């Protein structure tokens, strides 16, 4: 069936099986940043923003996205022009195998868009749906703190 939605700011119309997962449709469209992990909404590797909110794309039926706005990791930064959150993840060493990173960054992005000065507890809560088996989370939380400071303009871009 045909599905029309907004993907990273551009109108998209595509064909999809009515029982397909959104993550599969996104990857079929060439956006490989969204990962398929557990398929049950537990790991968060597939998190994308739907109408600005982080959601598990492995549990969204593709037709349910009709008329909505989806943002994937490719929609917030590029290798040549990364988003400050992406840069801070790299600086902090919050990226190891990288499989969870797109979901982590989008969850952090949604938090910082609504809460520019989050507490430690708010960051941990916002990332509660994203599992990382490599880093132990400390560096990830530090990276989100650093990105928040930078997005607020509290520190220089090059610091």
């Amino acid at each position, binding site marked *: 069936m045909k599905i029309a939605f907004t993907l990273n700011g551009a109108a998209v119309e595509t064909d999809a099986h*009515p*029982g397909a997962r959104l993550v599969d449709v996104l990857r079929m469209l060439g956006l490989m940043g969204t990962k398929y992990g557990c398929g*049950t909404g537990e790991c968060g590797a597939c998190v994308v923003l739907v109408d600005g909110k982080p*959601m*598990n794309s492995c*549990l*969204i*039926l593709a037709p349910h996205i*009709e008329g909505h706005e989806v943002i994937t990791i490719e929609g917030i930064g590029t290798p040549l022009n990364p988003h400050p959150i992406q840069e801070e993840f790299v600086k902090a060493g919050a990226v190891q195998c990288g499989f969870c990173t797109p979901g982590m960054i989008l*969850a952090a992005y949604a938090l910082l868009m609504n809460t520019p000065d989050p507490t430690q507890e708010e960051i941990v809560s916002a990332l509660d749906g994203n599992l990382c088996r490599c880093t132990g989370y400390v560096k990830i939380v530090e990276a989100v703190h650093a990105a928040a400071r930078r997005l607020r303009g509290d520190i220089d871009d090059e610091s």
Partner: protein
Amino acid sequence: MAHLLPHVTEFLVPSSLDEARSLLETLPETTMILGGGVSLGMIPRKRVTHVLSISALGLDYINIDGDDLRIGAATTLDSLEDTLTSDGRSGLGAITESIKRTATTPLRNRITVGGILAGVGPWADLPVALLTYETTVIIDGARSVTLDSVMEKGPRHVIGNHSILTEIRVKLPSKAFSTFVKVGRNATDLAISSVAVNNRCDKKTIIAAVGGIVPRPVKLFQTSVNDVRQARDDGASPRFMNHINDVVLRRDHRASDEYRIHLTKRLLMDSLEHVLNGGKA
């Protein structure tokens, strides 16, 4: 990667309740009524051939009208939590706490209130809290049944195959102190045991409900505040606590029956103490 619903041939999005009901009359038994769809991750439904989404029925609303809280079935947990928090109304502590303790942030952005009640499982947190309030469930926008009966008989039996759960109504207490507690293996785990207790100061009664240990959340007891105070002051094991021994436990590989009963009693006693002392309003 496998499709979430591999055998679905039609995905229908009716724009009115009448249209939805007409479609349900003609669709096969293998039709699934879909809210947020989160339960699909836990319960594979390989037999589903048709999906009827309630997303365009205008059921995404929360109205606080006098002492009635009316929640559309397609309202997400995240929206409900935001509204209740910003409204600042007291006496709803158990409801907001049960939402905060449900799953994870991305899932709460997707889970619908109607989906939790219509597809209720042993671990559902919100119904445990709602059972301690006067909560009714509206079916097809007209028929009203108590949440107690939905939980007791099972949603499929009460709602019926050709009907849609459309709204949840909670009678707001004029004064209440309530709490919800849950124990799992970690912060986002499904409940091994969950307890909600509501001290209805306006009615001088205390209502307790439990989840996790039972196949579906259940109201455990309703007793007078004086009974609870008396039992506490006497230091004896109160009579109303014996109800916990009557519940039919579901199996749970995470903990023994004895442990779960003991845990639930402890959660109940702590929660009763909490609401007697005015706990979270």
